[in-house]
């Protein structure tokens, strides 16, 4: 708006238009403060509830404390060195140290048209939710201390580098990989870590034989609803402004979520005769994950395509594939975030194309874009996978990954946190 004004004034006077310094835009700032709040809302309470409802009642608090503690610890790590290493100039893999402890951020520093304080807090909420996503994979059996250690190491050596590669001018950015809101940085990154971790930590006692049923499905459905609602901050917030692109991100996010949920519901209905609550909720998350990288470039038709594909493919992965391979990804972190992220990343290339109603890649370069997307996926898988293996190996050899059989039997709530979730 101000640009416009300055532009018109210059025109009036026949002067040369100079590229103006960006100034604070109150509308953009208003939106980005709220978007930050929404993304925090995704982790606590959203994700905590979604995951918490799915475990047995003896482990409910372990999930809630894990998500809550990670929220706090990631905040401090982001402030201390995360923001600097992710966002400042450095090499193709990692940034530098000039903004450690948020050096230089004041009331007046801007990042585009919003205060830099808002930008760093917005990005902090992404750094929070990503490690929190992973805890679903090894739920009900990993030690709290090991989780905190693993998350700290993984955040430092996998989250920050992938952020820098994709969004900080690093390797993936150089390849023009499109990851508008974090399909690669957040979801594939976390999904792979979850897969590795659930394999290295081992299966829960009873997995495959006993029915390890969710103790409170309503919590899960509420949590999924909150994730959905908060996801608009995630996707439309990634525009960093309240404009037409943010609006379109809002719309396509809604469409993809709904489409994936409906897809999952009908597939399950056809296959088992019953559309379940856990099913439709999980389908929504699959759609939200998959639209994430595409939300700045896809149009409504692309969103429907992404929704159908992610609903279908994640359904298969979270049910048949998991059973076939026999790993115990307890709350389907890999099946939903890993696979959904990959599906989304690849389709982002396609759906950005003009003929798909996207924001403007020509038919000719669509193939190249899809290839770039695939390269981005592969790099992220390898990077996160290797960091996870090394980190988990080291922790296993030192403090140990897994709680004792007795603690697992008793439940992590009592063994790790000295509390029961429910009393009378």
């Amino acid at each position, binding site marked *: 708006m101000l640009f416009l004004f300055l532009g018109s004034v210059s025109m009036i006077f026949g002067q040369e238009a100079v590229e103006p310094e960006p100034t604070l835009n109150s509308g953009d700032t208003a939106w980005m403060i709220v978007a930050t709040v929404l993304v925090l809302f995704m982790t606590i309470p959203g994700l905590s509830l979604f995951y918490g409802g799915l475990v047995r009642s003896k482990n409910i608090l372990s999930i809630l404390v894990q998500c809550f503690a990670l929220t706090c610890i990631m905040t401090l790590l982001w402030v201390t060195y995360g923001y600097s290493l992710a966002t400042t100039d450095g090499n193709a893999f990692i940034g530098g140290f000039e903004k450690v402890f948020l050096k230089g951020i004041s009331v007046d520093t801007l990042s585009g048209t919003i205060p830099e304080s808002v930008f760093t807090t917005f990005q902090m909420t992404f750094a929070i939710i990503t490690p929190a996503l992973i805890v679903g994979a090894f739920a009900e059996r990993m030690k709290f201390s090991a989780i905190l250690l693993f998350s700290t190491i993984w955040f430092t050596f996998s989250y920050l580098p992938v952020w820098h590669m994709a969004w900080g001018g690093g390797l993936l950015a150089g390849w023009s990989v499109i990851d508008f809101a974090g399909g690669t940085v957040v979801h594939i990154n976390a999904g792979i870590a979850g897969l590795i971790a659930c394999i290295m930590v081992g299966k829960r006692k009873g997995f495959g034989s006993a*029915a390890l*049923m*969710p103790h409170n499905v309503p919590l899960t459905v509420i949590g999924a609803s909150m994730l959905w609602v908060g996801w608009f901050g995630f996707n439309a917030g990634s525009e960093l402004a309240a404009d037409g692109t943010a609006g379109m991100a809002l719309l396509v996010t809604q469409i993809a979520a709904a489409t994936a949920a409906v897809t999952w519901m009908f597939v399950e209905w056809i296959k*088992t005769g019953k559309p*379940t609550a*856990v099913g439709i909720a999980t389908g929504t998350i699959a759609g939200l994950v998959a639209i994430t990288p595409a939300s700045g470039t896809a149009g409504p038709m692309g969103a429907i395509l992404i929704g159908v594909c992610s609903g279908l493919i994640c*359904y298969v992965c*979270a*049910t048949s594939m998991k*059973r076939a391979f026999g790993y115990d990804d307890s709350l389907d972190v890999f099946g939903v975030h890993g696979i959904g992220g990959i599906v989304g990343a690849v389709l982002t290339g396609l759906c950005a194309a003009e003929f798909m109603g996207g924001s403007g890649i020509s038919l000719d370069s669509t193939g190249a874009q899809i290839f770039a997307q695939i390269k981005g996926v592969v790099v992220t898988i390898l990077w996160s996978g290797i960091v996870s293996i090394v980190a988990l190996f080291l922790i296993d050899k030192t403090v140990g990954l897994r709680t004792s059989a007795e603690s697992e039997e008793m439940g992590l709530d009592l063994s790790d946190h000295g509390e029961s979730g429910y009393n009378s």
Partner: protein
Amino acid sequence: MKKIEAIIKPFKLEEVKDALSEIGIEGMTVTEVKGFGRQKGHTEIYRGSEYTVDFLPKIKVEIVLGDEQVESAVSAIINAAKTGKIGDGKVFVCPVDEIVRIRTEEKGENAV
């Protein structure tokens, strides 16, 4: 003195209670239990797998009473609780040596 224990289907509780009231039995103690028997449980679906839930919700009704009331009480329960479908439950009768009402310390059949 005897104790009757009846395992019944949960939604029959009101009818059983009313049937007992009609023959003058106004005291009973009720517990939520899970039953395992010929009646097979439902299947639940979770993450694409089906699990059979073996244990079915049942209600246990316990009534302590004098020997002469037993017969009529048992038939009242049976009539009220019967649906004719598998899983209707059982009635057991056990001996009781002594009964005391805590409030008054009355003993025996007076305590019921």
